[in-house]
């Protein structure tokens, strides 16, 4: 009895399977439409709209040219809650689950700044389709792909270069798209001129994009020199030998990394006058006293006016391998100082190099002559202005009184005899 029921049940299942499979098998070679053609019966119409008024048109040509089209995927492979045999389908479909095939990529995405923000309720944080597209997804090496090297700036800038989106998504860093566009990297990439120049993901990663506060981020404070060093190898090596790099190796992360001087997105060509002049202020954020005494010199005054022809901090101290004066390899060590001055002042002598570019008028120990000269000048200025200030005020008052009293004027005075 039991076995009879088992056979009957199995036969029924088999019958159902055969019945279900038969039309599908016969449809492929025969005239009956395939799944995609069935879908396109409605979705090929360019003006097609859902009941809610949303455009639902699909460009069949673009899909066919896409990586998924090339693999002959069916619409229902992604839109898995639709069945071509049960139409019309529901008004609202479930979101496509890319993880069905791209399990690893989606798992990585969950840990990115975008994935975390999405999970936390940020509705504008990018998901798969925002970067890769939908029906037109192409491989990154395809020049038409949104994720191709030359197109990534535009792809990321759809959000990170849009003021409204930046505000809406509370994006850290603000409108970085604009900054990048005008940066040396952005300019190099323009028109695909220099393909070795980095775009967004070269520094930030793709499915590993994390906020810089996240230690695992490529652009975290600790890792940024290595990230920049991927391309800038010589600078990376010099930096490691300099004072700033050494401080960081000793765990002092307050010491500057690449972006502290160069900025992150708005990086300027280092020869540009604007960068040369502006970076001085960056040095001054830590070395405030030295910036102040530098500004007292001709060098510092001219650069403050915006002209880069005069010595900046880096002209004397070097840039990536800046070292303390006590280090014999330093550009400002007693051994090297004269040669450093001679970079701009050919023919400079040893006594020329004993000029103090950071003399401090308030520091008697460091600059005694300078200190007393400054004191003398202060007293002289005070004395002259005080004496003549008082002299002038009194005189003005007296002559004004005389003038109003009418007993003295320019051309007919009363002094001496009358004319």
């Amino acid at each position, binding site marked *: 009895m039991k076995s009879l029921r088992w056979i009957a049940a199995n036969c029924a299942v088999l019958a159902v399977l055969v019945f279900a499979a038969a039309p599908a098998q016969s449809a492929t070679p025969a005239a009956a439409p395939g799944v995609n053609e069935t879908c396109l019966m409605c979705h090929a119409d360019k003006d097609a709209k859902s009941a809610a008024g949303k455009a639902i048109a699909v460009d069949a040509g673009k899909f066919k040219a896409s990586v998924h089209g090339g693999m002959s995927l069916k619409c229902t492979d992604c839109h898995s809650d639709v069945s071509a045999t049960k139409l019309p389908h529901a008004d609202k479909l479930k979101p496509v689950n890319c993880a069905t095939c791209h399990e690893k990529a989606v798992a990585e995405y969950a840990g990115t700044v975008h994935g975390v923000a999405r999970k936390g309720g940020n509705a504008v944080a990018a998901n798969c389709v925002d970067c890769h597209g939908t029906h037109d997804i192409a491989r990154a090496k395809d020049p038409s792909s949104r994720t191709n090297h030359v197109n990534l700036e535009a792809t990321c800038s759809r959000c990170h270069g849009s003021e409204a989106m930046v505000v809406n998504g509370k994006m850290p860093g603000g409108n970085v798209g604009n900054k990048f566009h005008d940066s040396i990297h952005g300019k190099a990439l323009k028109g695909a001129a220099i393909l070795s120049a980095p775009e967004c993901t070269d520094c930030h990663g793709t499915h590993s994009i994390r906020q810089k506060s996240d230690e695992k981020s490529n652009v975290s404070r600790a890792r940024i020199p290595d990230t920049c060093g991927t391309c800038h190898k010589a600078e990376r090596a010099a930096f490691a030998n300099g004072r700033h790099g050494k401080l960081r190796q000793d765990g002092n992360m307050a010491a500057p990394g690449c972006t502290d001087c160069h900025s992150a997105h708005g990086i300027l060509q280092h020869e540009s006058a604007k960068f040369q002049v502006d970076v001085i202020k960056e040095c001054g954020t830590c070395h405030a006293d030295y910036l102040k005494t530098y500004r007292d010199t001709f060098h510092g*005054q001219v650069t403050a006016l915006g002209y880069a022809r005069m010595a900046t901090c880096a002209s004397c101290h070097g840039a990536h391998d800046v070292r303390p004066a006590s280090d014999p390899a330093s550009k400002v060590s007693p051994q090297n100082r004269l040669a450093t001055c001679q970079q701009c002042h050919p023919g400079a*002598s040893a006594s*020329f190099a004993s000029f103090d570019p950071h003399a401090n008028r308030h520091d008697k120990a460091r600059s005694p002559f300078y200190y007393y*000269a400054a004191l003398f000048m202060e007293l002289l200025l005070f004395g*002259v202005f005080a004496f003549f200030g008082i002299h002038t005020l009194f005189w003005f008052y007296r002559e004004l009184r005389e003038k109003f009293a009418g007993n003295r004027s320019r051309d007919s005075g009363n002094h001496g005899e009358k004319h």
Partner: protein
Amino acid sequence: MAMATATASPAAVALGGISQRYYRRFTPAERILHALLMLSFVGCALSGLPLIFADRPWAATLARILGGFEGAGLVHRVCAFVMIVVFATHVITIFARAIAGGHLMKVLWGPDSMVPQPQDIIDIWKNFKYFVGKGPRPQFDRWTYWEKFDYWAVFWGMFIIGGSGLLLWFPVFFAKLLPGWMFNIASLVHGEEALLAVGFIFTFHFFNGHLRPAKFPMDTVVFTGRISEHEMKDERLVQYERLTREGQLAPKESTPPSDESRWFGYLVGGLALVLGIIAIVLIVSSLF
């Protein structure tokens, strides 16, 4: 004195119904030197101030107007050169003329000398008494104490600013002779002394010479070279009486200033006044 005004000389002109005589105070050469000194001083001031106040927005604008750092630097050096030539010309001619004319002592002492003398101390004291209403308005000889101060301020400034300026202009050369800290001192005193000179000339010299109520708006004597008898008797009665006594007044009598020279004075002097006052406004606004 009565004799001088008793009869109207041919040179006397009617001015507001009053006969005016004029006496020569500055020679044409002195007037040209003053004009060149004035223009080069304003040029140095405007091209130098942007450095002292480099962190102010107006400084970058002013530097840009003057052709940027290179342009302003050229203006500064050209004006400095003119000023040094003016100074040297003045000193050389004063002594050359005095030695040739056998009156070197008159350059070094006495009423025609610029050297400060006991009378100047007395004059300062008398003037302050007059300021506070405790005495009559003092009368002066050819050079008042404030004019002497102006004059020596230029001398002092020429050595301090001119000397330090040359050091900064040719540092590699001068560093062969001088230690490095001299260049620290040079850049300090060049700026501070310049600030003193600019602050002094564009306020106190302007006030003493031009803007005070008795002279307002301008005294054109340094442009026309001529001082009216009225003005001489108003402020320089000591000189007037001395020259009369010595019989030196009549030879100094001159034609009245021409309208052209007067207008030249108003134009050039007025321009310097305006530029100077702008500089003072910029400086004062930057001190706070």
